[in-house]
């Protein structure tokens, strides 16, 4: 993709992210993502209904990469089943780790395909997915 266009899309997601702002609702699972670098600090909340991702909301302070990745992740995940979303997660991880992955599944998340060249930014692009992994774990535990 044309790098200028790519930057444009990411910037749009950073400046006007999807589903920004938390809600007071006990049906959501809320996860804070203080990443290892101890800077980015996002709260992401997930509403899971009948095995499907019904809603995701987020708020907090984070860098352009983490914030845009969160926004794109939300757009990608909404309406998906947990199985579908974990398949996306797996392919996204593979992409970040320079392994084989299925492009078709990733949609705009593909925009981060070059991020593996900047190891310090890779963590940022992965940050929202860390939180999603915790959601998967908690769902598994609750059977």
């Amino acid at each position, binding site marked *: 993709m044309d790098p200028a266009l790519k930057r444009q899309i990411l910037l749009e997601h950073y400046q006007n992210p999807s589903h920004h702002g938390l809600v007071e609702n006990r049906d959501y699972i809320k996860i804070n993502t203080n990443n290892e*670098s101890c800077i980015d600090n996002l709260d992401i909340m997930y509403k899971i209904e009948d095995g499907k991702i019904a809603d995701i909301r987020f708020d907090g302070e984070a860098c352009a990469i983490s914030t845009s990745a969160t926004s794109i992740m939300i757009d990608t995940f909404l309406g998906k089943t947990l199985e579908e979303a974990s398949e996306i997660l797996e392919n996204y991880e593979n992409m970040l780790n320079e392994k084989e992955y299925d492009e078709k599944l990733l949609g705009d998340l593909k925009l981060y395909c070059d991020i593996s060249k900047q190891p310090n*930014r890779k963590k940022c692009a992965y940050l929202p997915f860390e939180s999603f992994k915790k959601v998967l774990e908690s769902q598994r535990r609750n059977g």
Partner: protein
Amino acid sequence: MKREDFPILKNDLIYFDNGATTLKPQVVVDSMIDYYTNYTANAHRGDYDNSLKVDMKYEEVRTKVKNFIHAKSEREIIFTSGATDSLNRIVFGYMKTHLKQGDEVLITKAEHASNVLPWLELEKEIGIVVRYIPLENHLVTMENVEKSITEKVKVISLAHVTNVLGDIRPIAEIGKLCQEKNILLVVDGAQSVPHRKVDVEELEIDFLAFSAHKMLGPTGVGVLYGKENLLEEMKPLEFGGGMNASFASSGEVEYKSLPSRLEAGTPPIAEVIGMGAAIDYLEEIGMDQIHRYEIELKKYFLEKAKEVDKLVIYNPDIESGLIAFNIDGVFSQDTAVYLNHYHICVRAGNHCAKILKEDLFVKNTCRISFYFYNTKEEIDQLITVLKNAKDLFQIVLS
């Protein structure tokens, strides 16, 4: 000013992260290489020439440190692995056996993690109470120190200069007050000893901690200063070779006297020697000179910064070589990534003072911290790059 002594500066690099660690002049590196190539031996052990030379060099550094901070005797200088290690020894080697449940320790919310977490741990272990001196506009004032003192306060533990805003605490006045009230004063000198003259006698400091790597020296070594009568009662946290005079299978042990008693095991010999070379280098320039020049750099920056839109500076009035700033509307880490693109090193984050954000309202800042090898030309370059920050996201997102 002495830039040619720092080989790394020959690269295209503007290094403004001296609060994290400083660059090393060639003489420091050479002094360690000299030990490793020409007279390697253990300390305190030998009866042969090289070993004696090592002993001499190692103990010479103790004298240099003593003079550098104006301690009374070499017995008051303990080599540690750094400021963090020194602070932990103060808390767990001394305070743990000298404080009791209910005793209060005063710190602030702007302390580095290394001057917070050991105390919180001791609070859990023996029930001391950690209290925070309220900050006035982020600063420690004598009025608030006085107000915070109760009958139960036994220790005040503060950074001399903070790593977040670079503010300087009135340690001399606090030291005096502590003397009057029989309170122990622990000073975290990690950000002050490298940048200004610190005189433990004048400031009436009971314990002082600092790291060599923030003052031109190597990593892995630092200093614990303590008044001799206090160190006499400090319990070693490590036991082993080098610190015992004799022991027998009956369990009878006799420990050596200060400072050896508190330096078990083979010490970081090369690093101690490197620290000695760093102190020589600093003394040759002069600590007052360094302090004055850093303030001059900051003034210059502030003047130039007026030309840059949307620059928010959080500590313009604080006289030190540290600037905390953000570009309005830009997350600090993105600013740091942008500057890195132009080989300008600054630090983004909360600088390990995590509870400060409860008071500061901004969670993250970019930090510029100068040292004497920085120049006005470097500041000019930084200003140019900041002025062009409209490209910021082009760079951060590519």
